[in-house]
């Protein structure tokens, strides 16, 4: 009786899993079909919304070498001298470095601001200030200070990613139950130990959600960061192809950005579940 129960359950869960995957795939297919139908019926000028086919072609072309015109013996490889995946990789590197610094600095700053009240009063206004600054407004200043190389781009991504992490950390800490901290101190933890062993893990879910938001944020900032001298870089490619009215390539870039961001986000969600398994179960 118990065994069949388990088998039945296993079967059911396999079916459920399958249907779950089906739903996602179905939703994707639906989107592509609608897109295709709209373009096939010529409801929109292909200059603005090219067909799925031509976007796919742009994607393939951007990852291969091909003659510049049919029959010509001049071969060009990728777009703007780099393959699309190289552009993506370059942007990912910048985001990775920027996020890395942002996580370290944001969490540290968050902890400091949450514990030192007077520093909080002095620095928090600036964090909130930076949080609202349009990247396009101050990228010029960053270029002036850090040059047109990767440094200014990474600074921009860093400045975009840092404030949400600081805020999430501060908010997470203010939400830590005082009983937990008091209990740790009564058990012999010093201020530092209580931080490391109790406040930090209690804040972890909040920090992770801050990181998640920050990564999304850096993706939206990547075009602004790569506007000048951003090649190779997927944001720069998206912008440049737009100015050349190469809409299929622009849309291919946007889709690639979206998919990469989506995958990265999934990774973070997975990681979050791994490091904070207790969330939602208390």
């Amino acid at each position, binding site marked *: 009786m118990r065994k069949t129960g388990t088998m039945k359950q296993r079967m059911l869960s396999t079916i459920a899993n399958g249907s779950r995957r089906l739903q996602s795939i179905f939703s994707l297919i639906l989107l592509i079909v609608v897109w295709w139908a709209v373009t096939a019926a010529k409801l929109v000028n292909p200059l603005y919304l090219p067909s799925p086919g031509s976007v796919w072609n742009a994607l393939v072309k951007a990852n291969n*070498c091909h003659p510049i*015109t049919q029959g010509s013996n001049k071969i060009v490889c990728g777009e703007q*001298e780099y393959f699309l995946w*190289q552009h993506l990789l370059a942007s990912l590197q910048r985001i990775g470095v920027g996020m890395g610094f942002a996580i370290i600095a944001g969490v540290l700053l968050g902890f400091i601001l949450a514990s030192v009240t007077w520093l909080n009063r002095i620095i928090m206004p600036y964090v909130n200030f930076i949080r609202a600054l349009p990247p396009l407004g101050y990228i010029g200043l960053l270029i002036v200070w850090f*040059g047109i190389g990767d440094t200014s781009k990474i600074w921009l991504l860093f400045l975009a990613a840092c404030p949400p992490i600081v805020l999430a950390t501060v908010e997470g800490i203010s939400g830590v139950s005082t009983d937990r901290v008091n209990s740790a101190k009564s058990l012999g933890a010093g201020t530092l130990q209580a931080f490391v062993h109790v406040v930090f893990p209690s804040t972890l879910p909040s920090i992770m959600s801050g990181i998640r938001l920050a990564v999304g944020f850096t993706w939206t900032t990547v075009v602004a960061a790569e506007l000048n001298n951003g090649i190779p870089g997927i944001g720069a490619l998206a912008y440049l192809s737009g100015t050349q009215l190469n809409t299929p390539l622009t849309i291919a870039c946007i889709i690639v950005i979206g998919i990469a961001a989506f995958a990265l986000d999934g990774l973070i969600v997975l990681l979050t579940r791994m490091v904070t398994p207790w969330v939602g179960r208390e």
Partner: protein
Amino acid sequence: AMQKADQLSGASNASSEKCPVTVNKEAKGTIRIAWQAIANADLVVKDRKLLEACIPNATIQWNQFNSGGDVVQAFGSRSVDIGLAGSSPAVKSVSAPLNLKVKVLWIHDIIGEAESLVAHNSSAKSIKDLAGKNIAVPFGSTSHFSLLSALSQAGMDSSSVHLINLDPDKMAAAWGRGEIDAAWVWDPVLSKLKADGGSVVTSSAATAKNGAATFDMELVSDDFIKANPSAVETWTAVENYAIGLIASDPDNAADSISAQLGNSPKDVKVQFKGYSYPDAAEQSKIFSDQLPGIFKATAQFLKGQGDLDAVNADYAPALYTTAIDAVAKQ
């Protein structure tokens, strides 16, 4: 740094190009160049790696920019040595309040029909017919300067039309929706609008005739001139060779440019018609006879718009003619 796609795939076909002018073995270090996606000989040089071949002991660094303003900013932060900018940012950079330590080195092209005013309504014969209408133009561009000049030449004022700041690639959509009546713009958008029922009202060629010429030019920093005079000269010689190619072998030149722009060689050849590409000999004359005056006029116009604080007494010191004159003699 990342390996380029052609190296990665083994399809590299440009590195075999030989240097067409005297090879400069003297210049060393890094030469930082700012380039923009404009159909002129600079892209031929870049595509064929001519500078790399002609100055073999230096590292050539190509940095792409989107507007003259950005290039000027890069000069200020000492991030580039040589760079392409339109004539109005060039004038601004050497006038107050900026007073950057840069000189004008080269004219890549003189803008003619390449930047034109197209209108929806084919009955608009002159800019006067567009009074009260919506005209789109990218603010701060050479087209913006030409449009304002055209308006003032016609005795109009910027308030007698409705100016809309619009990026070229957004114009086609606004055009299709009927949100703009006219636009002063360049290719590929210009061709799109013409194909989409637009008719040309006037162009930068016409405004140039009336004394408000616009150019794409190369700026070079004083520091770089002082440190590498020979490299500056080699650069000029290479550009001069490339400009010659546009006249002598337009098919190959168009192939190179289209490879850089990411469009088709056919489109590039159409664009060639909208510009004139003076060679070093012609430029040598333009630099000494016309440019100081044109710069002064431009500066006066910009000051009237509130874009400049003061007009320089003389713009000749802002021009670097040594290299052009030398190349012109060869």
